């Protein structure tokens, strides 16, 4: 126990650095996947059949395979198979590859949530807007958008909380996020080796982060509670 107290400042410092990388991947994924998901959602609902089939196939592949495999393929395939390591080495390259994988993966999940939200608004809302002389754009922004947002908040919060934990998968391409930082103390780092507790301790970070997210989404849901 005394030993752990002695190691604690060193470990926390290392985990903080790792968690910063975790958060970076988390926010970059959100910023990329939230709009890309909308593009994919409209693609799969398109009346132009080839586009709708293409997007549906992409969504099927991305949702049908493990994110860990996607990370490996996106990171290693260009270099090992095509002989063209587009990501470059080092942490920056790994972060880029991880970001692309996560954005693509999460955009596909988000797109299905959006689609449910868009199609969940009754057609009567559009018709009421039309007979009142509104344009399609006005109907989307003034009538349907808020109803869609209300519908997608609960499933989106679920997915976003999963994303926080999924970032740990980037460990597979050696991205130096918090799990990687914790694991380092098993192999030996900064004079500490064979310690497994730092790895266990990473759970606290995820728990606090998701606690905050849960509170934020709870407040957003409450804010949208004024209508049904």
């Amino acid at each position, binding site marked *: 126990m005394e030993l752990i107290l002695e190691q604690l400042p060193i470990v926390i410092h290392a985990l903080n650095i790792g968690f910063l990388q975790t958060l970076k991947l988390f926010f970059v994924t959100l910023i990329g996947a939230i709009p890309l998901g909308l593009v994919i959602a409209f693609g799969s609902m398109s009346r132009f059949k080839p586009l709708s089939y293409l997007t549906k196939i992409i969504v099927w592949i991305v949702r049908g395979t493990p994110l860990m495999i996607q990370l490996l393929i996106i990171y290693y395939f260009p270099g090992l198979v095509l002989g063209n390591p587009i990501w470059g080495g080092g942490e920056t390259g790994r972060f880029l590859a991880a970001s692309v994988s996560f954005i693509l993966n999460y955009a596909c999940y988000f797109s299905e949530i959006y689609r449910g939200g868009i199609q969940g608004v009754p057609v009567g809302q559009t018709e009421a807007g039309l007979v009142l002389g509104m344009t399609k754009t006005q109907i989307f922004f003034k009538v349907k958008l808020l109803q869609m947002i209300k519908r997608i908040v609960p499933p989106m919060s679920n997915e976003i909380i999963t994303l926080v934990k999924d970032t740990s998968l980037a460990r597979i391409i050696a991205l130096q996020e918090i799990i990687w930082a914790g694991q380092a103390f098993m192999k030996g780092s900064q004079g500490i080796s064979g310690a497994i507790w730092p790895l266990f301790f990473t759970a606290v970070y995820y728990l606090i982060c998701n606690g905050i997210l849960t509170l934020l989404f709870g407040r957003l849901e409450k804010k949208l509670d004024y*209508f049904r």
Partner: protein
Amino acid sequence: MSILEVEHIQKSFEHTEVLKDISFSLEKGQVLSIIGSSGSGKTTLLRCLNFLERPDSGIIRVNGESLFDSSASSRKNEAEIRKKRLHFGLVFQSFNLFPQYTALQNVMLARELLAKEQPDYKSRKKEIHQEIEAQAEILLKQMGLADRMQNYPHQLSGGQCQRVAIARALALQPDILCFDEPTSALDPELTGEVLKVIKELADTKTTMIIVTHEMAFARDVADHVIFMDDGCILEQGNPIDVMEHPKEERTKQFLARFTQG
């Protein structure tokens, strides 16, 4: 001149002919009731008038101006259709109020959006807004909803929702106000309060087309009744003739269920 003339309207979905050669006209200030069993094409006819469906053929004229003519080749763009549908208002069976807006906002929204297209909107913004709000308040009071203006639709009863929907349709001052089974989603008590405001509108000479299953109401309020069956107008005339002395066997059969009950 009739305010509305409908000539030879036809409409098919897939392989089912829903409207077969529908023609009728309506005078200004009159009330037309359309009765008939479910699936006879009443709702589709209203939806054609409001441009929610495009007829396969036929002509629709309002005040002598042709709004739809299948023989005229030019396809109308969205902006033109938008202007034309403002001749009509439509009250839906399921209200279709906008849930995120209060009763007052529901009534004001469409007019505010239209006002933005006026050239003098920017300079008279405040004035226009107050004008629209004042009109909406008058309409809601007329509907007996003076104390419900700030409520959201989910806080209102079905009857109150439908009265907000009527006010919302009236806000745009349509030439012809259409009702698609306005009381079919309501219990008898709430039906009464909605029929009462429609009756009041009829008394003030609002031109209306009412699709309804409320036979007593149709006879009471209408100047003209159309009985539809299987996509055709089987019988039409003044309510006493059509509803009390029907000529067609099918009409007698349909009305028998109501007079017996």
